[in-house]
């Protein structure tokens, strides 16, 4: 029997669920829930649909574990890891902070890892890559800062850009756009170079908290050494790790953590940067990344930026803001466990985007971009910072 220490700590939460089933389907537009959510759980919708694929079933299973009714079997471990932790169930339940369903199965995953039953091999591979190379791709650590070639960025300063793995390796245009935008506004921006490690988002979710802890301690110390008072990132997952997970682990951070959309919105409002023109496509829809929206409650700044671009029409998908459907790639969980399911979830989102008549999707998370771009016949998918840089006519 696996250790139940983490789940035990959440025992009272695990028995708060009223089993109402809103985490499966919630259609009401009554007063408290201001938006209809329709079918709630992407995993339930793209699996066999048994109760154990949605929050109330998993919470019931947590009760079963706590009551010693069954152990963590290989099949149960697989179920608990096939989840994007998109948190739509929490948003629908509106019982936070007393009841936050994903916290329960994240605790179960920690117990599974502590007992040596997990994480499953696909995630273990990512863990190994991160532990050894400090990035999710297993790429050479000494190439982490290649995106900054020619930018002459300092290693110290009050405002520090945390690029994250995706912007450092496959999506350098995001990092270069952020730097260009902030410099245009007259801000001095520093970075960590090769000393920046993965934020640990996958490990926070897959239960490998010892790896996540090492990453967090390293990054916090590196940022502290840089003298930064404010850390800005363009990655929703890095933001969530730094802003929510790190303080829970190491206590109050000696710096603030903000998303680039918040900084850019401040700069636009202050007239420090002035978007000039549409980036190409004019009718745009915005996809709320789960980790930026439901985890960090950032919904308005990206929208303010997009609507502030001359010639751009922002059209909302039917499910947006707290109600947004996941891209399917959250923390690489579903993508690793069931790539077909992840692709189907992303295809749902692309269909919703198409329904709006938009010519392009803008989002603020590289992993969402990766997921949405892989949908066959996808609309163009842009990162918010890249769009803003283009709107400013900046050379990247």
């Amino acid at each position, binding site marked *: 029997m696996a250790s139940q220490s983490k789940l035990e700590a959440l025992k009272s939460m695990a028995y708060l669920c009223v089993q109402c089933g809103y985490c499966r389907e919630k*259609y009401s537009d009554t007063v408290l829930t201001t938006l209809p959510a*329709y079918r709630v759980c992407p995993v339930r919708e793209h699996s066999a649909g048994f109760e154990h694929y949605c929050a109330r079933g998993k919470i019931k299973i947590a009760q079963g574990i706590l009551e010693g009714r069954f152990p963590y079997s290989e099949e149960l471990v697989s179920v608990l890891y096939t989840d994007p932790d998109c948190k739509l169930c929490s948003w629908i339940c*509106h019982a936070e902070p007393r009841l936050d369903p994903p916290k329960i199965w994240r605790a179960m995953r920690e117990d599974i890892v502590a007992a040596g039953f997990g994480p499953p091999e696909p995630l273990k591979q990512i863990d190994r890559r991160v532990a050894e190379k400090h990035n999710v791709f297993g790429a050479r650590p000494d190439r982490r800062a290649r995106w900054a070639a020619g930018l002459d960025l300092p290693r110290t300063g009050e405002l520090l850009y945390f690029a994250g793995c995706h912007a450092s390796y496959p999506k350098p245009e995001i990092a270069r756009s952020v730097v260009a935008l902030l410099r245009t506004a007259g801000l001095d921006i520093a970075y960590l170079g090769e000393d920046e490690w993965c934020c640990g988002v996958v490990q926070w979710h897959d239960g490998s908290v010892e790896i996540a802890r090492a990453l967090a301690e390293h990054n916090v110390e590196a940022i502290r050494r840089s003298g930064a008072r404010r850390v800005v990132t363009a990655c929703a997952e890095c933001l969530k790790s730094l802003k929510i997970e790190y303080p829970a682990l190491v206590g109050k951070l000696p710096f603030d953590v903000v998303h680039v959309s918040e900084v850019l919105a401040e700069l636009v409002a202050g007239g420090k940067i002035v978007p000039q023109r549409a980036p190409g496509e004019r009718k745009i829809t915005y996809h709320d990344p789960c980790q930026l929206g439901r985890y960090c409650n950032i919904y308005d700044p990206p929208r303010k930026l997009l609507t502030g671009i001359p010639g751009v029409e922002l059209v909302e998908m039917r499910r947006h803001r707290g109600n947004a459907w996941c891209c399917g790639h959250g923390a690489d969980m579903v993508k690793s466990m069931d790539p077909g399911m992840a692709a189907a979830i992303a295809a749902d989102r692309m269909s919703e985007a198409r329904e709006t008549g938009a010519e392009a999707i803008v989002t603020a998370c590289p992993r969402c971009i990766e997921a949405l771009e892989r949908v066959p016949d996808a609309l163009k998918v842009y990162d918010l910072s890249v769009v803003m840089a283009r709107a400013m006519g900046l050379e990247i």
Partner: protein
Amino acid sequence: MKHPLYSALAEIVGPKYVTDSDFAVFAYSNNSSQFPSRVPGIVVRPGSTEEVSRIVKLANRTKTPIVPRGGACSYGGWPEGEPGRSICVDLTRMRRILEFNPVNKTVTVEAGITGTELETRMREKGFCVHTIFSPSDSVTVGGMICGESGAAAGRDFSAAGMDWLFTWGLKVVLPNGEIIQTGSGINPNAKNHSRVSSGPDLTGLFIGSMGIFGIVTEATLQLFHWQGHEAVGSIAFAHDRLDDAHRAMAAMDAHEPKLCSTLALFGPGPAMPPGQDWVIMYRVTGFTQEEVDRKLGAIGRIVKETSPVNKGSTPQSEQMTDFYMARMHDSAHGHGMWFMIESLVPRDESLRLLKESLDWLKRELAGWERRVPVFNSSLFAQLDGDVISYHGMVDLLDAEAREKAIAVQKGALDFLLGKGGNIIVLSKDLCDVGARHFRPECAAMLRTLKAALDPNNIMNPHIFGLP
């Protein structure tokens, strides 16, 4: 070890839709209630009526009990079937809208669609069904018909009554696996457009049946045009003016044509401090704002004539109204397991029964007010009758309180049924309470019907005091 029917069920629905894993069946061991878990042996998610029929035939051949499952949101205990052996038939995969007919004003759906999904889809077309307000969003149409006694209600249940009135016909898999159609569709040459058939009302046999006579797989429901305008309001009465409040509410509900789509009287429950107001809360709907305004004017006149000593609308009454109209079920989230005590009573006895049952609850819960809090006492008007309703909460980790809550829930219903009420929301343990108050002849008839239709007693056994 695999359930003995695993392979046979997998052959019917495909292996993807069968599970007998220990954790998976445990997730099917309860509904939205504080009652103990009752674990099935295997769970199957059929995709069609024909698959349900084959499952039932298999269960008959092997004498394996079946427990049908919709949204599993009832709050009175999950059916036990035969723990560890039963087949739980999860109908929620069957959620298609089969026919929308705006001319006949009918919609035919698979039983696993939630009432609120159906309502949302119909509203997009300018129509509505009577399912949006209560019970909770994830209750299925099949669950409302069989498990809620047709007592699910639209936002106009005070004016129009409960769902069973608008259920035109059903497709049902009988306990022997045969498939029948009730309502006008009893004639294979006829559409499902009316409850009226060329014979007895077979539809009624399955409403509130808890599935003991068969599994409802499709339903044809009446559609109504959506009334797009509405207003809500409240009137407060001092705590010692319950009689006045009841008189006003009864007068509001007695008006023809009906004024209020939703009408309820709310007061404090045993857990609340004394001295709190009674509050009438109402919702008025109409096709135009003028219609709504006319109804609001009539309500004002009626209250002034019948019960002039009131406080009008107060901040507290408005807050309570917002709370209620947003569905109180939702407010339980993150606090504890919600439970209800609800009984339909005649209007001319509702005031007396409310007072007597409130006194009963206060006695029974003396000393338990914090651990088994019952927050409110209320009357919901519905078609010139009233539903007495109490709402409570319990911490599932407090075993003593949990037992007390179960005892009080069953005891209060027993009390109300002994005084002339009836249960409106069915579930295993509450049905057993209801069955204690069946006339002996009716109980015998039920046994006869059950034995005739289900000689192997496979279909949701042990409900209504039946074997």
